């Protein structure tokens, strides 16, 4: 039923777009992305290209990703594969000068899954005090809030951000955020209380502690799994010349320890810490972005160490523009070479039986070239090289292959 409603919303958006298309196209106004360098990562939600009709207070937008991959593991491949991993629609509205609404609806895997990733009302009382309520993206790390496909030079999203941390991770809740600017500096904070995780993070088919397993629980948009709010908070500091650093925390009780007044288990906590940064090296214009996170989960000692109580991992992207200007007929095109390095230790610890290190790690190096005919569109070619060990730390599986994709705001 919920999916049906979402589809109706999406159809309505399409119809509004189509209706707009039938009117004089000169009335269509593209709201450009704010490229001022005072913006923080937390502004990514609103800092997207939108299309506005005349003076209507509603603007729409979205992006699409399509890709091809040829990946193999230890000599075995499933061959050539094409997919549209996601198409996302944004609808934003200015209800009042200080009240605005934005929603982000994502269609994944050709519409197999439809999800509201973001649908929140923002009420601004002061630049340092804004109330946000609805379906919000928990500000853990940087990628969760800044995940739009066209912004990245890589076909796959970072493993640490999407499989260790559960990006994109949205929940229903309320919170406050604010920003303060002073000359070269910008400071921002966010703090939310939302519904959160559930037992699935240590009770799933992945055979490891897996925070994204809670995303399968759609009821979290209707009620908390345990009545305990999840706190997510972040502070970020940006200097125009140096770059931005963010520190974030997400934590709370994750398990259903009580139901109908019956005590089912002890209260068990989840705590996540993350640090993220981004900067552009002057003169050579090399862009660096990355994040690292630590996950701590209270896994019962009597359960299996297959499900670790500590995880850590992160990624760094290095993007070097090599050609700028008029390329292939596009006036402001850019040709980049890039590299992503990523690592996740799914189970950081030692076996009780042998006191030897637990494996379950993944490393990846992804060289890439990308072509941006405009800032909003990217054509990217990646070569992914990964090594993955099993729990016991046996010789790693070697995985590699090429990925080609396009992604664009529209």
């Amino acid at each position, binding site marked *: 039923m919920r999916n049906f409603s979402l589809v109706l919303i999406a159809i309505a958006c399409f119809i509004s777009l189509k209706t707009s298309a039938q009117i004089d196209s000169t009335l269509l106004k593209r709201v450009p992305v704010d490229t001022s360098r005072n913006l923080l990562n937390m502004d990514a939600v609103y800092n997207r290209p939108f299309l506005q009709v005349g003076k209507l207070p509603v603007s729409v937008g979205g992006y699409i990703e399509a890709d091809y991959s*040829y*990946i*193999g*593991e*230890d*000599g*075995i*491949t499933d061959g050539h594969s094409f997919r549209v991993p996601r198409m996302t629609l944004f609808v934003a509205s200015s209800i009042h000068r200080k009240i605005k609404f934005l929603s982000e609806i994502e269609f994944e895997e050709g519409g197999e899954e439809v999800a509201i990733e973001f649908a929140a009302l923002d009420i601004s009382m002061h630049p340092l005090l804004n109330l946000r309520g609805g379906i919000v993206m928990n500000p853990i790390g940087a990628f969760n809030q800044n995940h739009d496909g066209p912004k990245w030079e890589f076909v796959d999203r970072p493993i640490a951000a999407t499989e260790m941390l559960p990006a994109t991770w949205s929940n229903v809740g309320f919170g406050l955020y604010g920003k303060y600017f002073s000359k070269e500096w910008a400071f921002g904070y966010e703090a939310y209380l939302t519904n959160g995780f559930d*037992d699935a993070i*240590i*009770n*799933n*088919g*992945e*055979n490891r502690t897996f925070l994204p397993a809670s995303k399968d629980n759609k009821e979290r948009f209707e009620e908390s799994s345990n009545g305990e709010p999840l706190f997510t908070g972040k502070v970020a500091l940006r200097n125009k010349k140096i770059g931005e650093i963010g520190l974030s925390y997400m934590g709370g009780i994750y*398990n259903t320890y009580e139901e109908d007044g019956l005590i*089912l*288990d002890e209260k*068990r906590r989840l705590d996540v810490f993350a640090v993220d940064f981004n900067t552009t090296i002057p003169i050579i214009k090399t862009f660096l972005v990355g994040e690292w996170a630590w996950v701590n989960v209270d896994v*019962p000692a*009597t*359960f*299996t*160490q*297959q499900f670790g109580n500590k995880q850590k991992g992160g990624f760094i992207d290095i993007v070097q523009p090599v*050609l700028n200007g008029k*390329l*292939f007929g596009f006036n402001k095109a850019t040709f980049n070479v890039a590299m992503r390095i990523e690592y996740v230790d799914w189970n950081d610890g030692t*076996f009780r*039986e*042998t006191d*030897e290190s637990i*494996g379950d790690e993944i490393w990846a190096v992804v060289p890439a*070239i990308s*072509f941006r005919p405009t800032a909003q569109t990217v054509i990217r*070619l990646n*070569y992914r090289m990964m090594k993955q060990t*099993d*729990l*016991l*730390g*046996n*010789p790693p599986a*070697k*995985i*590699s*292959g*090429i990925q080609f994709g396009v992604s664009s705001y529209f």
Partner: protein
Amino acid sequence: MSKKLSYLIFLLILMKIMSCEEIIPVAPAENELLDGPTEGLSHAEQRQFLNGDIAFNDEVFSSVDGLGPGFVATSCGSCHPGDGKGHPFTTLTRFGQTLPNTLPELSIGGPQLQNRAIPGFEPEKIPDGVPFMKFTPPAVTGLGFLAALTDQQILQYVDSLDEDGDGISGVPNYITPPPYFEQKWLHQPVNGKIIGRFGKKAAAIDLLQQTVSAYNQDMGVTSTFEPVDPFSQLTTDPEVFDQTIRDVVFYLRTLKAPIPRNEDDIQVLKGKRIFNEIQCSSCHIPEWTTPDSDISALSNKTFYPYTDLLLHDMGPGLDDGATEGSAETYEWRTPPLWGLGLSPNSQGGSFFLMHDGRARSIKQAIVLHGGEAESSRNQFTSLSETDKEALITFLESL
């Protein structure tokens, strides 16, 4: 010019990458891997092999799917990574039977300890003073070849009275078959019991029993074959489909036999000769040939498991005080040696040998042999270091 050149370079890079035949990692040599199907399976058999492979290696049980409440591991692959030997992390503890030819005392929680439990439950504990034995998970490759042998073939090596005077007897473990046992022409019942051939004590008659027992005792997953939950000791609804169990059994039957490496190496050949000279091969019988099988790929195939599938007295040092079936507490089934050299690839980089993983090297495992193997062990310890190395090199080549 420069623009055209940049187009050309871009296209050439693309074409080069797209045409590269080594885009994906090169496959390891076939003899470096334990997993993979036996050669000669039909398309239909390969489909069933694939289904079994997925159930064995990819299917993970959670409490939602029937895991536990008490359990040892969450999947078949957790105990047998890459179809090889397991790690102490998933070592099993068996208890409840201290005398041969008695039934395990189920009332105290036997025959196996479920040492882990899903959240909210407490794992099982062995009652004070009850003897137990620990089993490190074995490799599962090549089991179909052993399963295809006839009881008569196994019995040819029985010498319970040591009539040939070589100090080695060898007896079968006669097992009372479970209710779901499907007797085949290759079995020869004696007083309603059948020769066991799988497990450290040879307590499982066939791969169906081994599989059903593993689902039940290792993962706490009930089936129509074994509907009693080991935690509650009560009958529950089946938690795994019969077809899944059949597919896993088929997978185990059709996994390839481990392929030896460096067979023509001088050291390997020398070690092989020493292996025979010091009578290791009296129990670790190198060569067998299967009779006709319902799977044609397994019919009339000669293979080299290095086992006689019989029980042998291994001396007091390996007597754990617990047993299964008709085996004495000091008797252990001769484990197959095939795939031995690849064990570190599935045991986290080092050896955990003997029934409970106590031996951290092949040499240490040999020295731990006692009882009927005492003579061979003594001959081994008397060898020069060079000869010992040659023997170990041979064993590592298997």
